[in-house]
């Protein structure tokens, strides 16, 4: 009985103690649940905004600060931009089943080696491995859909040129680290890195496309080795189109040949032949050394030093200055140049920018090669474009200066209606005569295929033997044509040079046959794009432009309407 009582009391005491301690323990448990509840509210609501931001920005900011500005053409068409390119990465520490992961990845990227992937993903000591750089968004989506833990994407910025090879010689390209290696990408590397605003070029891809297509077809037809072409705004110096063929894909610049990468429009220098007669005639008229009706006997070749100067289209008669120009007489041009003072050509060529590298925003530009000295013989050959090498861009810029009287620096950057200051090179009077003469060439000579109905093209052919070693190779030509339109009020200069065209039907592939038709086709297509209105040729106000010398060739007095 006693033991029973004592048990009851011990039991009771133990129970009391247990219950008081239980109360304490229960409170702890309740507090723990409360902490969970508070933490839940905390992570869900209070942190909701900040966490949501990090979730959203995680993808957006993953390596996406545009490190290089876009390049656009004059109408805002994208020429170069940056693409956010996904790359496939792995974290071997997180990958659960490397073999299964590799098998699924290879299904989507069959070019990867499965065994190599397994090896990469099994390297448990690493937290980051590149599996494949530059995958497509579709591949990214497919791999993401697999949901493989430990396989992730890293985003890189890749330079992309949507116009591919079309503008490659002007725009250039970069290396994998987005550093400019050629073209505007190289010349404006710093600007592109610092700016976020797109860099506006003076190019118009529409014009560029027309010029490239027509040149490409002609080069193909004449089995030529290449060529260059430029469309220049004669009133500002802006380069509207710049083509050098063959060209290459900027994305595969590493595999392009030197010939493809060589910019023949700005870097290559060539003897451009008769195109230089434009400058010669302008010098002669501007200096007052000759008058329009001064005539020269072009019947016999000129023998001077060890050279013979002869005409290709020999007229075998006494020629006036306009006739020399229109029939492209070398003898006549040389005789005119023989009258110049020693420094006259040099000064004039300097004013036209023909003796220094062009101002264009490219690293690849050629330095003109004038004759070693300006002795008489060289003054005579230079008159018809021999013994002096300039780039096609030089010629286009100089022709623009002749037809509007002012010289403008060539540029690849868009001028936003800012007033452009040119330097006066010839008088308005000389300029007008030159325009009329250029129009005559298109109306009467082999240059007529450069005419584009109702756009009033003026121009000059040029056919030069390619220099080889110290001499010339008569079988290889640079055939050129420089056109200006509308000749009544010149807006654009178009120059086309075809390098080494081959004969067709035994006909010499001259500038008139090979280059002039390209210029004609290009102008008839780009003039409407550039907002140049057609003109009815026979309208009374236009008629006066024509030089009527065909009606009275024997007359020494030319009836030239000079205002």
């Amino acid at each position: 009985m006693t033991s029973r009582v004592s048990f009851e009391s011990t039991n009771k005491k133990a129970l009391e103690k247990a219950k008081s301690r239980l109360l304490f323990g229960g409170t702890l448990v309740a507090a723990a649940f409360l902490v969970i509840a508070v933490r839940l509210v905390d992570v869900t609501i209070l942190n909701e905004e900040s966490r949501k931001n990090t979730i959203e920005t995680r993808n957006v900011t993953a390596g996406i600060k545009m490190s290089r500005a876009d390049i656009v053409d004059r109408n805002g068409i994208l020429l170069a931009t940056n693409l956010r390119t996904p790359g496939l990465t792995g974290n071997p520490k997180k990958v659960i089943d490397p073999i299964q992961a590799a098998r699924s990845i290879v299904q989507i990227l069959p070019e990867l080696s499965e065994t190599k992937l397994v090896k990469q993903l099994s390297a448990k000591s690493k937290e980051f491995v590149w599996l494949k750089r530059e995958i497509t968004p579709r591949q990214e989506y497919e791999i993401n859909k697999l949901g493989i833990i430990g396989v992730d994407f890293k985003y890189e910025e890749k330079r992309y040129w949507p116009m591919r090879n079309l503008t490659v010689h002007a725009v250039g390209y970069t290396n994998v680290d987005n550093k400019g290696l050629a073209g505007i990408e190289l010349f404006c590397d710093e600007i592109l890195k610092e700016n976020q605003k797109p860099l506006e070029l003076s190019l118009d891809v529409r014009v560029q496309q027309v010029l490239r297509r027509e040149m490409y077809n002609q080069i193909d037809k004449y089995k030529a080795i290449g060529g260059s072409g430029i469309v220049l705004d004669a009133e500002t110096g802006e380069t509207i189109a710049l083509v050098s063929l063959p060209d290459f894909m900027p994305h595969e610049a590493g595999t392009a040949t030197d010939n493809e990468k060589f910019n023949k429009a700005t870097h290559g220098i060539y003897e451009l032949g008769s195109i230089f007669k434009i400058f010669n005639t302008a010098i002669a008229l501007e200096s007052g050394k000759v008058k329009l009706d001064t005539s020269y006997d072009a019947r016999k070749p000129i023998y001077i030093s060890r050279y013979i100067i002869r005409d290709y289209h020999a007229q075998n008669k006494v020629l006036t200055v306009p006739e020399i120009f229109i029939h492209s007489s070398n003898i006549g041009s040389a005789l005119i140049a023989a009258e110049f003072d020693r420094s006259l050509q040099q000064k004039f060529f300097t004013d036209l920018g023909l003796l220094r590298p062009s101002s264009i925003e490219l690293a690849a530009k050629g330095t003109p090669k004038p004759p070693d000295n300006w002795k008489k013989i060289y003054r005579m050959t230079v008159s018809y474009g021999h013994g002096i090498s300039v780039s096609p861009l030089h010629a286009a810029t100089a022709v623009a200066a002749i037809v509007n009287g002012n010289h403008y620096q060539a540029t690849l950057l868009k001028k936003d209606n800012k007033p452009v200051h040119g330097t006066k090179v010839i008088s308005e009077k000389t300029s007008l005569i030159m325009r009329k003469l250029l129009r005559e060439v298109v109306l009467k000579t082999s240059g007529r295929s450069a005419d584009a109905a109702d756009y009033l093209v003026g121009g000059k052919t040029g056919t030069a033997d390619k220099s080889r070693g110290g001499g010339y190779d008569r079988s290889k030509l640079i055939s050129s044509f420089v056109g200006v339109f509308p000749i009544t009020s010149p807006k654009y200069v178009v120059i086309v040079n075809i390098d080494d065209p081959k004969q067709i039907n035994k006909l010499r592939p001259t500038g008139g046959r090979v280059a002039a038709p390209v210029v004609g086709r290009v102008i008839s297509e780009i003039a409407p794009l550039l907002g140049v209105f057609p003109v009815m040729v026979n309208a009374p106000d236009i008629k006066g432009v024509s030089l009527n010398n065909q009606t009275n060739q024997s007359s020494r007095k030319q009836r030239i309407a000079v205002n």
Partner: protein
Amino acid sequence: MTTFSRTDTSVLGRWWWTVDRWSLAAIVALIAFGTMLTLASSPAVAIKMGYDSLHFVTRHLIFLPFAAIGIIFVSLLTPTQIRRYSVLAFLFCILGLALTLLIGKEVNGAQRWLSIAGQTLQVTEFAKPTFAVVTAWLFAEKIRDNKFPGYTLAIASFVILIGLVLKQPDLGQSFVIGTIWMAQLCLAGLPIWIVASLFVLGIAGLCSAYYFMDHVKQRINSFIDSSMGDNYQGERSLDAFANGGLFGRGPGEGTVKNSLPDAHADFVFAVAGEELGLIIVLVIVCLFAFIVLRGLIRTMGEGDLFILLASCGLLGQFGLQALINMASSLQLMPAKGMTLPFISYGGSSLLAIALSVGMILALTRRRSGKARNE
């Protein structure tokens, strides 16, 4: 359900009127949430593991009726029956744990699974509740009869059990078993200084785990300082809660399950957060708190020390396991492989939890003096 008349003296009738129907309702609600979340979270995991997408769903639905029957059947038992069967089951569990170490299946570097007739089960899950009952019996018996070697047996069985579980190794379960064992010791009336020194001993044990178990060290390091290691799971888990917001994305609409390896088990709470939203998740937390606290309050009115210690031990394990799971999902502690009772998928763990909850219900039934001594 209330078709049992109060005067009904059939087995089920008496059970209905004596069982804690509020706790029962809470348990049913948890099972319902668990089924819904298994439907939502497990297909993603199943596909990733190469199973049919409904693999876990099917298994969960097969286990559910057994779990329900288990709860009801066990809750029909008397405290004496509970005690006897538990002691017996505990001995079997020790045997099973020893077998697990010998012939068990190794998953992710831990040997925890025993395969019986094509069915794998985690013996620790069953050892845990039965041990709580055995401990309660040993302490209560010691107090009732001072000559009974209660403490010696309690310490011996504790050392054997913890040794076997740590050998697997399963630190999480060891922690739960150890903590609740100490809590029971404390309730049994041990002097405070002994309880305090045991507490210090436990802390020391955890510290040694940090130094001697590499994966523990790594997890704790990455929890403390995310730059030291990868805390990817924790980050994704928190994203899930933020993503869910107040009302959730809707069942099945979450994305976290695609990026967490154990979305259907260890991180089911995050899936709940994302798909059901804060309000429902708070309801789930309340259901757990309600079951545990209501159980503890009911034991306050208990006159039997064994029943008090046993139900506190069982409730403690149940609550602690839930708290650990929720806390690791919420980045309040390092990630720990611990399921959320009834909510996580888990065939054998569901059965074990069912047995454990069945015992809680049995022990907290209202009894007349006669019933107690039955």
